[in-house]
């Protein structure tokens, strides 16, 4: 059994340049700026920052993206015990819940699609998403020069981190012939030219994981990728600092499967946003839930 990473997805902050200009602000770099921007952009029925608070994978991803930018990257200690309940995590949750106040009322039921629709319809000034390019191009104005993308702001403006998924092809087979055939297929796919074509099956969403792939002409030749080249280059840059919860610093433990299957990171956020607990209470309860499901 083996697995090969095929494409990369990383979270970014998306906005319209013209909207930020009109408000007289720049893309936020620190949490403070981020909150101020969200507040300033929340006028005239527009939500300044579209942030999900659903008990769902998208919220796991966005919350974790804020956590890694607030020094709460590690969920586990080196010995496999949980360290989710720490002041940095609490701080990240506090900030996230605060920022969520500038989101549409139904953000507690959002998945990826709602965030994009909100951004496209200009009901949200900013959203956090892997990519909004395809929706922006087909359903909104599709003006490449106006679409802005930035790294997720970090607490104090230092290194910007993000959640990142290297989606992999996995092979579970003992059959020699099948193994051979699959190997051939994957290496065919990873040849720069073919790889570019494969990634563009979903332009602007799947990013290359190989250095060759990022160079490949077929990747950049796609009309949509060409049109949004500037944004896509930024996205690839931002993905350099990708992290994934439960897979950091070599601290990978099997219980992360149950923790992500039950969306406990997102569930913890709901305890704050929906049930009105304090961030400290919710994070403590979240760690207890992680222990419970890991049994």
């Amino acid at each position: 059994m083996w697995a090969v990473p095929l494409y990369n997805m990383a979270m970014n902050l998306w906005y319209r340049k013209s909207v930020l200009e009109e408000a007289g602000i720049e893309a936020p770099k620190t949490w403070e700026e981020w909150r101020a921007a969200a507040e300033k952009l929340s006028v005239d029925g527009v939500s300044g920052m579209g942030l999900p608070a659903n008990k769902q994978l998208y919220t796991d991803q966005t919350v974790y993206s804020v956590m890694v930018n607030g020094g709460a990257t590690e969920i586990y200690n080196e010995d496999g015990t949980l360290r989710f309940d720490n002041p940095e995590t609490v701080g990240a949750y506090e900030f996230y819940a605060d920022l969520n106040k500038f989101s549409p009322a139904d953000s507690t039921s959002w998945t990826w699609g709602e965030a994009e629709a909100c951004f496209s319809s200009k009901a949200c000034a900013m959203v956090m998403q892997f990519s909004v390019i395809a929706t922006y191009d087909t359903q909104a104005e599709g003006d490449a020069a106006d679409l802005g993308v930035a790294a997720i702001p970090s607490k104090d403006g230092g290194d910007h981190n993000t959640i990142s998924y290297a989606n992999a092809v996995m092979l579970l087979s003992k059959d020699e012939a099948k193994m051979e055939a699959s190997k051939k297929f994957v290496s065919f796919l990873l040849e720069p030219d073919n790889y570019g074509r494969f990634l563009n099956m979903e332009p602007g969403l799947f990013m290359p994981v190989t250095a060759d792939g990022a160079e490949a002409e077929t990747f950049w030749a796609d009309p949509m990728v060409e049109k949004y080249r500037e944004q896509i280059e930024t996205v690839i840059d931002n993905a350099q600092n990708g992290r994934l919860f439960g897979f950091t610093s070599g601290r990978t433990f099997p219980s992360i499967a149950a923790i992500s299957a039950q969306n406990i990171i997102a569930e913890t956020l709901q305890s704050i946003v929906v049930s009105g607990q304090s961030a400290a209470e919710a994070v403590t309860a979240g760690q207890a839930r992680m222990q419970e499901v890991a049994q």
Partner: protein
Amino acid sequence: MQQTRALAFVLVAPALLFLAATLGWPLVQAVQLSLQDVRVIGAPGAFVGLDNYSRVLSNPSFWNAAWLSVVWVVANAVLQTVLALAVALVLNEKFPGVRVARTWVILTWIVPTVVVVVIWRWLFSTSGGMINPLLIQAGIVERPVGFFATPWTAMATLVFINSWRWFPFIALMMLAGLTRIPDDLYEAARIDGANAWQRFKRITWPLLAPTLGVLAVIGTLLSFNVFDIIWLLTSGGPAGGSRTLPVLIYETAFKGYRLSEAATVSVLATLLLMAFAMVATRALDRGDDR
């Protein structure tokens, strides 16, 4: 007599065997599972007796789900009865287009559930949906309402959507009851000088009551088991606010990988419903036996 028995057996056996295989056998399996400790489908499990039951019964989320199921069933029953009764009373009148109305009122019931879900998810959405702008234009609200945003509103919205789908069916069953009330009764009452409300109270309501009773039982059983609408719209959220028993069962089995616990909740839910159904059908049978 011997012959009748044999014939009855031949006529009833296919349906019974079919139900035994498709519903009865799985129930036995569920009971078996609930006495073991099985995590995922196909994995072996040790016999643990009633451990799962004591664990489930001491778990607050089970009681919360049971409570929400009761809320769900009662709210659906009330809303559907009100809507359906209004429709049935109107369709029992004569007016131009009543035949067309009688046929097409059923429209919401024949649309696939997934489609119903997508329609309402879109209409209630804060970005692009039709309802929020209408409410704002009408001056009812100032900012877009998050219909699925809080436990309470999510539950209410789900009840509305489920009732929207089911009320026409119930309405037609009621209409069936109404059409069997003889016209002479109304004529006689009219001659006695009874007004519309008095006629409804003295004739329609008492004569319709048995039908309503049967429908209440059936509607309760049907809506208790509704899973797809809730799961597809809110997945039981937010913060577990719409997690009824069927949702809890699904979540425990397929998200939490605790098959035996899920089976335990199922068995408890079944017992609860069976108790209700038995009491209710007895009560109804007393009224009319054939």
